[in-house]
């Protein structure tokens, strides 16, 4: 199905916020918004669900902690217990005070790195990935709102977007839906 979109460009973040609210109120579907910087409250205005990435980070942190405990228990207690500076090595529990720094470091290491990797995967960011912002000015000072124009009267929609303060409006016909 050919997807018809309208790209409306705004030159101000407050104007964009207002336009997003008006567009949603008029029951048009905003399929994407491109902004040069994080506009406070925009995700809420567009109607995005809150991100769950912090939860993944917590889980990764627990994994890191588990890795640290299992690793040090195996190496220092099970495989080759040694008397080092008189620190007790008979059980993991007794030797644990000396393991706390590394338990902490590995928790942070796993929580931080795996969360960032998750972020890059979910947002499709990696080297040699082609940028997909339709207008290069959206990384500078312009704000682009993409509105679904299928099943809508393009003229009416255009007029509507014009009235929300869009400085440029263009019709995009895509062969494939993305």
């Amino acid at each position, binding site marked *: 199905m050919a997807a018809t979109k309208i790209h409306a*460009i705004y*030159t*101000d973040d*407050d104007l964009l916020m207002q336009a997003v609210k008006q567009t949603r109120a008029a029951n048009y579907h905003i399929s*994407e918004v*491109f*902004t*040069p*910087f*994080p*506009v*406070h409250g*925009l995700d809420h205005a567009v109607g*995005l669900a809150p*991100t769950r990435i912090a939860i993944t*980070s917590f889980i990764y*942190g627990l994994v890191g902690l588990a890795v640290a405990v299992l*690793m*040090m228990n195996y*190496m220092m207690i099970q*495989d*080759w217990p*040694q008397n*080092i*500076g008189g620190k007790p090595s008979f059980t993991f529990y007794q030797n644990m005070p*000396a393991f706390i*720094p*590394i338990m*902490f*470091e590995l928790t*942070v*290491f796993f929580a*931080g790195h795996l*969360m*960032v990797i998750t*972020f*890059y995967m*979910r*947002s*499709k*960011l*990696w*080297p*040699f990935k082609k*940028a997909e*912002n339709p207008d290069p000015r959206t*990384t*500078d*000072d312009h704000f682009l709102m993409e509105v679904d124009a299928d099943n809508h009267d*393009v*003229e009416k929609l*255009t*007029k509507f977007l*014009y009235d929300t*303060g869009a*400085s440029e409006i*263009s*019709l*995009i*016909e895509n062969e494939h839906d993305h």
Partner: protein
Amino acid sequence: MSSHYEAPIREPLVLGEKSYHDISVDVGAPVLGKANKSWWIVFTIALIAFLWGLGCIIYTISTGIGVWGLNKTIGWAWDITNFVWWVGIGHAGTLISAVLLLFRQKWRMAVNRSAEAMTIFAVVQAGLFPIIHMGRPWLAYWVLPIPNQFGSLWVNFNSPLLWDVFAISTYLSISLVFWWTGLLPDFAMIRDRTESPFQKKIYGILSFGWSGRVKDWQRFEEVSLVLAGLATPLVLSVHTIVSFDFATSVVPGWHSTIYPPYFVAGAIFSGFAMVQTLLIIMRKVSNLESYITVLHIEYMNKVILLTGGIVTVAYAIEFFIGWYSGVPYENYTYLSFGAATGPYWWAFWALITCNFIVPLSLWIKKLRRNIMYTFFVALIINIGMWFERFDIIVVNISKDRLTSSWAMFQPTFVDIGTFMGTIGFFFVLFLLYARTFPVIAQAEVKTILKSSGESFKRLRAEHGDDASHVQTVEEYPADAGPAANVEGKHFNTVFDDSTDEESENNEVDFELHRGKIDNLLSGVGIFDPAVHKQDDLKKINGVGPVMEQKLHQLGIFTFEQVSRMTDREYDLLDEIISEFPGRAKRDDWAGQALILKNKK
């Protein structure tokens, strides 16, 4: 809109009449422009120092660490001094980007990028020293807990030196991804602004295809917040663990429970001093005075005052406890009467002068806001914090329990060369960074422009807090692609009235300005369609389709004509086209046109 409200009593963090576009231009300028002579001179000096250091390192590794000035009493000296000094410097970056983010301090946005870069480069230098000190650095992988050919011989997880391995590598790698994630939108800005296909390719790769979708930004902000939450205890843990290298031993002067908090405060103290040293130069060289203001410098001076105060209290406690314990060995520790009057008296007094007496002057507001003076104090603190580590290591072990083995340390040229080499390496990295990276987190600065920008603060003062920040909208049809609002294509009736008005407004009043137009054209030259070719004036920043149309009406069609504009022509242009006064001069149309003309 009142959502951008900030108390008027707060000083602006972005000076001048800046728009979002101006921020992109200012931050992109050092990357997109050419390096000046002073950059090359400093870079060459740094490179020579680096190569000298590299030679010393190769000599050390190929001959052995006997080439250093170590003796049987003093088995740790400059190597670990330099290691701790560099790690300490590497603490300010994460403090600025993580702790200040959690405290929602807006001023961190102008300085965090460079502070994090400094952190990463400093930790790289720090990491060199333990590796060289191993003596056989090709076996450095033995510090990792990996299966090996000796059966079940694992690394010793009870040892603070191994904790260091984990702490420093976690810190370096987490700082790196924190830094890089923040860089993505700014690399994307450079990618979309540059004209050169090579730069477009490089910054396209570096930006990981960042597009700035609203969902990306939502995740970006969450990731930054969580990373800040993780990095804050991390940064405290790193120097705590470095201090454990000393505190868990039984050497008098090292075996001290106040080491962890005292080392962390000292690290932040020295890190901020290094940030000041670098940024005071960079704001000047890269023309970033509007973003890194005196206010930023004052804030950092206040952090220096606080952490310097903590360090001073720790010195006092160490000195007191050394005396109060009544143990004679404690009288030779680095903070004791014995140290102040003994053979290392100069190192003791260098520490007291540089870290305690000189920074006290920052209590005076005039000095705190004086840029030259701040630079001077920052240099002094850098030196003082090096002496602190030197004193802790060398002074403490120079007089051990056996009087017959008391000794002094004499650095060899290899010790000195290696240290100078790391300074050179650090500056090589930082100078390359300053030329190729967006040195200010421009996307973040744009978010605070309306609340903390000078011009917006002034607007609020003049028009009240509820004045709209919505700027005048320049309305014109999109010049590429199928445009929905091109008259006659999708609509004939809806816009009829407004488009007529538009085109009328766009007309230049020829009758009124006849004399001025002739005057203007006499300055820039007349366009002759027979010999000249028309240029796309929209390539000049600040010239949109409407402005281009107006310039065409005046008879200006080529870059050559625009490049001949001087102040006289700018003024004439402002008088003829009154909508954008001062715009042409501010954006330096003539300069831009000259570049575009030569590129043709």
